[in-house]
C-alpha cells in the first residue's frame, strides 16, 4: 500500500505540473468563445442555441443523479461493505471526471468537429480538446464536455457492482483511471467521435444512440472480466460448484436506487439528442419509459410464475434491463417496438444471470454483467431489427433491409472484443503487481472498517465508542494481533468443506483436536 500511495503522490504532482504547462503555453490564447457572446445573438439562431443549452445541461444534471441511483443499489450488498461500494461510486464521479477532463475527452472527440476546438484526430483516435484549453475553451464545447463526462463516469460505476465486496481500493483507482482515460474514450471515438465504426459502409453506419455499446457493453464486459479475475466472494460457491444466495441488507435502497436511475435515464436517452429543437425527444422519452415498464412487468409475472414469490430485486433488474436495452434504439423505433425490446431484455437478463452465476461461476453481486453487458449487446442489435426509418435514416429488418443489422453486429463484436482484451490485460497486470483482492480477514469483517475506517451504519454513541488518540504501543500491539488474526482467518478460508447428509448442505469439516495440539 505504501508503494501505491507514493505513486499517487507522484501522479498528483505530475497532474499539477502538466496543468501549469498547458495553462502557460496555450491556455492564455482564447480563440474559442468562452463567454458565449459570439455564439448567442438575439435571433432565431441565438435562441436555438439557448434552448439546446438548457436541454443538454439539464440532461447532464439528470444523468449525474444516476450516480446516486447506483450508490443506492448498494442495498443489495451486505451491510459490512456498503460504505466501500458507495465510495467506489463516489470516486467514479469525481476522480473519473478529472481523468476524463485531462485525457479522455480529447481522445474521444478530437476530430469529431461536433463543437469548436475539436479539430484534430483520425478515424482511430482523437487528439484535440484536452483540458478544455485553447480553442476548446468555448461554451459549446464545455456544455458538450459536461454531458459526455457524466456518461464516462457512469461507465465506470457499472463495474463497481460486479466487483463489490472484495476488490482492493487501489486496484479500483487504477482501473477507473484506465476506463475514463483510455478504454471508454477510444471506443467512444470510433462510434460517436467520427471514427471508423460510425462511417462503416453498411446501413447508416454503427448507430448507438445513447450508449448501449459505448457505455453499457464496455462497462458490462469489463465488469465480467473483473468479477472473473477476482474470483467469487467467500461462501458464494460450494465445493461441488453450486451457488449460494448471499442476501443484501436493504432492499428498500435497491428499489429507490432503481427509481432514481430510471429518473436519470430520461436525461441519458432524451438528452442525447443534445438539442431540444430535435422534437424526436418526446418519442425517445416515451420509448424509454415503456421499455422499463415492460421489463419490470415481465419479470413480475415470470418470477411469480416460477417461484410463487414476487421477487423484488428481479423486478428492479427487469426495469433496468429494459432501460439498458432501449438506450441504443430509443430514437429509432416506434413505441410498440420498445415493448418488445423491453420484454426480450428482461428475458435475456434472467437467462444471463443464470448463465453467469450457475454455468460460468462468476460471482456478480449486483447483476451488472447480466443487466448491462448482455442487454447492451441486445440493444445494439435491436436497432438493426426494429428501426423504422423515421429518424436519422436508420432502417432495420422490419423495413426490409439487413445492412443496418450487419453494421450493429460489427459494432457489438468490436465493443465486446475491445473491452474483453483490455479487461484481461488490466486485471491480470494489477493482480500480478499488487493483488486485486482484499485479505480474507478484511473480507470476513467487511471492507468498511478496514479500508475506510468506519462502518457505514455506526452504532449508538454512548454504547461503544469513546474519543481519544491512540497511543503508539497500542498501535504496535494492534498490528501484531491483527497479523495473527489474519493468518487464522486465511486458514479458515482455505478449509475443507464437506457435504453433510444430515443437514443437506455444505459445512466446514471438523478440525481434529489432535492436529491442533
Amino acid at each position: 500500500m505504501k508503494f501505491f500511495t507514493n505513486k499517487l503522490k507522484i501522479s498528483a504532482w505530475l497532474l499539477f505540473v502538466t496543468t501549469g504547462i498547458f495553462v502557460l503555453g496555450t491556455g492564455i490564447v482564447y480563440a474559442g468563445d468562452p463567454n458565449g457572446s459570439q455564439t448567442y445573438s438575439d435571433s432565431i439562431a441565438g435562441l436555438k442555441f439557448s434552448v439546446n443549452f438548457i436541454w443538454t445541461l439539464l440532461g447532464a444534471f439528470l444523468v449525474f443523479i444516476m450516480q446516486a441511483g447506483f450508490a443506492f443499489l448498494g442495498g443489495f450488498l451486505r451491510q459490512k461493505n456498503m460504505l466501500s461500494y458507495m465510495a467506489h461510486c463516489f470516486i467514479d464521479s469525481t476522480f473519473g471526471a478529472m481523468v476524463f477532463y485531462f485525457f479522455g475527452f480529447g481522445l474521444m472527440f478530437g476530430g469529431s468537429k461536433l463543437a469548436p476546438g475539436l479539430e484534430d484526430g483520425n478515424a482511430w483516435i482523437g487528439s484535440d480538446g484536452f483540458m478544455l484549453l485553447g480553442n476548446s475553451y468555448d461554451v459549446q464545447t464545455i456544455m458538450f464536455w459536461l454531458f459526455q463526462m457524466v456518461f464516462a463516469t457512469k461507465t465506470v460505476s457499472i463495474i463497481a457492482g460486479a466487483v463489490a465486496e472484495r476488490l482492493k481500493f487501489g486496484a479500483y483507482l487504477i482501473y477507473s483511471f484506465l476506463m475514463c482515460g483510455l478504454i471508454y474514450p477510444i471506443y467512444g471515438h470510433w462510434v460517436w467521435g467520427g471514427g471508423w465504426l460510425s462511417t462503416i459502409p453498411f446501413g447508416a453506419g454503427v448507430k448507438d444512440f445513447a450508449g448501449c455499446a459505448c457505455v453499457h457493453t464496455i462497462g458490462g464486459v469489463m465488469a465480467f472480466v473483473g468479477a472473473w479475475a477476482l474470483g467469487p466472494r467467500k461462501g458464494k460457491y460450494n465445493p461441488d460448484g453450486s451457488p449460494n444466495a448471499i442476501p443484501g441488507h436493504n432492499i428498500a435502497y435497491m428499489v429507490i436506487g432503481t427509481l432514481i436511475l430510471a429518473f436519470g435515464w430520461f436525461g441519458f436517452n432524451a438528452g442525447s439528442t443534445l438539442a431540444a429543437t430535435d422534437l424526436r425527444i418526446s418519442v425517445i422519452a416515451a420509448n424509454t419509459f415503456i421499455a422499463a415498464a415492460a421489463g419490470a412487468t415481465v419479470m413480475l409475472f415470470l418470477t411469480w410464475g416460477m417461484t410463487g414469490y414476487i421477487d423484488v430485486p428481479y423486478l428492479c433488474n427487469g426495469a433496468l434491463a429494459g432501460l439498458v436495452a432501449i438506450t441504443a434504439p430509443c430514437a429509432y423505433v416506434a413505441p410498440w417496438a420498445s415493448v418488445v425490446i423491453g420484454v426480450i431484455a428482461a428475458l435475456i437478463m434472467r437467462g444471463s444471470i443464470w448463465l453467469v452465476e450457475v454455468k460460468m461461476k462468476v460471482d456478480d453481486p449486483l447483476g451488472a454483467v447480466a443487466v448491462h453487458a448482455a442487454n447492451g449487446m441486445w440493444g445494439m442489435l435491436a436497432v438493426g431489427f426494429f428501426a423504422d426509418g423515421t429518424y436519422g435514416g436508420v432502417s432495420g429488418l422490419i423495413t426490409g433491409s439487413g445492412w443496418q443489422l450487419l453494421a450493429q453486429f460489427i459494432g457489438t463484436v468490436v465493443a465486446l472484443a475491445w473491452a474483453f482484451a483490455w479487461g484481461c490485460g488490466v486485471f491480470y497486470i494489477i493482480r500480478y503487481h499488487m493483488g486485486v483482492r482484499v485479505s480474507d480477514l478484511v473480507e470476513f469483517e467487511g471492507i468498511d472498517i478496514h479500508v475506510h475506517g468506519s462502518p457505514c451504519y455506526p452504532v449508538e454513541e454512548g454504547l461503544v465508542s469513546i474519543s481519544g488518540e491512540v497511543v503508539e504501543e497500542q498501535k504496535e500491539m494492534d498490528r501484531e494481533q491483527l497479523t495473527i488474526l489474519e493468518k487464522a482467518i486465511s486458514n479458515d478460508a482455505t478449509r475443507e468443506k464437506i457435504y453433510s447428509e444430515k443437514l443437506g448442505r455444505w459445512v466446514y469439516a471438523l478440525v481434529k483436536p489432535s492436529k491442533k495440539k
Partner: protein
Amino acid sequence: MRDNIRTFDKGIILKMRTFIFFLMLIAGTGFFLFNQVFAGDPSGANTYSESIQGLKFSVNFAWTLLSAFLVFNMQAGFTFLGAGFVQKKNTLNYLSMSFIDFCIGALVFWLIGFGLMFGGSRLAPGLSLGNRFIGYSGFLLLGDSYDVSTAALWMFQIMFAATSCTIVTGAVAERFKFHAHIIYSIFLCAVLYPVFGHWMWGKGWLELLPFGAGARDFAGAGLVHGIGGLTAFIAAWMVGPRYGKYNPDGSSNVIHGHNLLYIVIGTLTLIFGWFGFNAGSTLAVTELRVSIIAVNTFLAAAAGAVTLLYLSFRITKKSDIIMTCNGALAGCVAITASGAYVPPWAAIIIGIIASLITRISLYSIETKLKIDDPVGAISVHGANGLWGLLSVGIFSDGTYGGVKGLIMGSGWQLLAQFISCITLVAWCFSAGFLFFFVLKRTFGLRVPVNIERSGIDIYEHGTSCYPGM
C-alpha cells in the same frame, strides 16, 4: 408448507401469462396494421422549423418532458414516504406495490387509457375521435398518433396516471393482496382515471360546462389526487383495518412507521417533483405564468407545513415532523387545481386551510369512520383534492384563463367546481365500490391474518426488506 398456502395463486398466474401474451399480440397486430401508415410526424421534421414557431415548439417540448421526468421522480418520493410509514415487516411489500403500479399502469395507459382520455380532445395530432363522454382514438400511439407532439403529451399524462395509482397503494398498505393490487392498477389506469380525465381535460362535458369558464382543474387536484384519494377511501374501507388497529370498544391504537428519515426525504422528493407536476401542466414554457405557478406551489406547501407544525406544537408540545410533512403535502395537493388561477396570497390561505382539513380528516377518518389509512392518503390526497377544486371557484382572480372566482364577485365558477366535485365523488364511489366489491368476492382483497401478523414480505416476496439484520 408455504407452497401449499400459495397454490391458490396458480389461477391468477395463468391469467397474468395470458395478459402478457395479449400485450405481445396487441403490439404485433399494431405493427402489422399500422406500421406502414405514417400520417403523423414521428421524426419531428415537419413540426419543427427554423422559425419562431419551431423554437416555440422546441422550448415547450423541453419544458413538458423535463416536467414529466420530475413527476416521475415523485414515484421515488412516494416510495420513500410510504416505506417510512409502514412497519418493518411490510416494507418490501409496499415498495414493490408502489414500484409495479407505474410499470403496469404505463402499459395499460398505453394500450387503452390514453385513447379513452384524450380521444376527441384534439390537443395533439391523432386524437380526433371522441365525444363528450368518452374518447376513442390514439390507442397504442399508432397511426396518426405516432407523432412527436402526441408522444410529449402521452409522456406527461402517463406520469399523472401512475401517480394516481400510487396514491391508493398507501391507504391499503400492510394488508392488501399483491394480485388484487395489480388488478386494480389495471382498472384504475384503464377505466377509472381516463374516463373522468376525459370529462375534465379531454374536452368532455365537465370542461365544457356553461357555468363560469367550465370546471377547471389545472394540474389535477381533483383528477389525479381526488381520484387516487377517494379510490383509496373505498379500497381501505372494503379491505378493513389492519390487525390490531382497533380495540373491541372501537378506540384506535397507534401503529408506528419504521423510519422517519424516509418520510422526510420522501416528502422533500415529492415537493421537488411537484414543481414539474404543477408548473409543467401548462405544457408550454412560452406561457410565462409558469413562474407564478411555481411560486404558488411552494408557498402553499410552506404554509401547510408551518400551520401543522404550529398546531402540533400547541396541542402536544412536541414538534411533530410527520404532521409537518403531511401539512406540506396537503398544501401541494390543494394548490394543484388552483395554482395557475390564484395570486400568491391566496396560495397561502389555500395551504393553511388544506392543512387544517388534513388534520381534521385524519382524525375523523381514523376515529369516527374507523377506516385505517396507514399513510394518510385519503386525508392528504382525497380531502384536499376536493378542497383544491373548490378553491378555484373561490380565489381565482381572473388574470389567467378567464377563470373568475368568488373574490371577483362571481359565483358561477364555484358552481362549476362544485358540480365537478360532486361528479368526482359519485364516479369514484360508484365505480370504485362496484369494482372492489366484485374483486373482494372473486379474488379476495386481504392476505390471511396469520400472514398479516408475521409480515407480508416473506410470504409474498420471499425475503424481508432488511435481510440478515
